[in-house]
């Protein structure tokens, strides 16, 4: 069995999450993670999404978060324009 399969899944999850957050939570990123102290835009948006969806707010793409993000949904954005 593959020893490093979870790493590949994490990359796929992160890519999926970024697209999801851009589409539904108005995530704006130039593709680079912030090196400043504190959360970058992606983690901030993950937390915002988790709070909105009634999930535990961790800023991490845990299984509960990924499950909700993979559910079919309305195309309307959850963030203010």
């Amino acid at each position, binding site marked *: 069995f593959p020893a490093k399969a979870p790493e590949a899944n994490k990359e796929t999850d992160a890519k999926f999450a970024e697209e999801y957050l851009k589409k539904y939570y108005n995530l704006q990123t130039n593709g680079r993670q912030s090196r400043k102290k504190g959360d970058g835009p992606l983690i901030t948006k993950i937390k915002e999404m988790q709070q*909105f969806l*009634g999930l535990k707010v961790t800023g991490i793409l845990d299984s509960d978060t990924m499950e909700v993000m993979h*559910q*079919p949904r*309305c*195309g*309307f954005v*959850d963030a*203010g324009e």
Partner: protein
Amino acid sequence: FSTFPGNRGWSKRELTYRIINYTPDMPRSEVDHAIQRAFRVWSDVTPLTFTRVYDVTSDIEISFAAQVHNDFYPFDGPHGTLAHAFAPSSGIGGDAHFDEDETWTSGSNGYNLFIVAAHEFGHSLGLLHSNDPSALMYPTYHYTEPSEFRLPEDDVNGIQSLYGARIT
């Protein structure tokens, strides 16, 4: 619940709708019934009325389309985004679009058109998404047997904040 900032919904209470085209997934009569019933979800608890029109532009134009479809929000193929609708205003405002790449149904084998339409019409009337997982306006799809559907309290409170309650 939440509402569109700065948008107090429709200023009139008598609204019209038109079904521009049909999905081949369901008999037309079932589409008509699902749409009519989805509007009734909201008219049962507010003073709003919905009248179907055929040959003139209506307040809420309903269509099925796939991928790019003349707005800035192309659909994405099966699953993912199921539908979207626009906040109350003239023109495209209030209109509801359903992704034709989905499988629409009046049962549970596919996406139930009544459930999705009722949610989208919430947007057409001025509601944003709710963060209450039991609410109709929660952003993700959850099947409920249509005959057992009751509009959750959060949604009742939301729509009545815009239009008041139906006086019986």
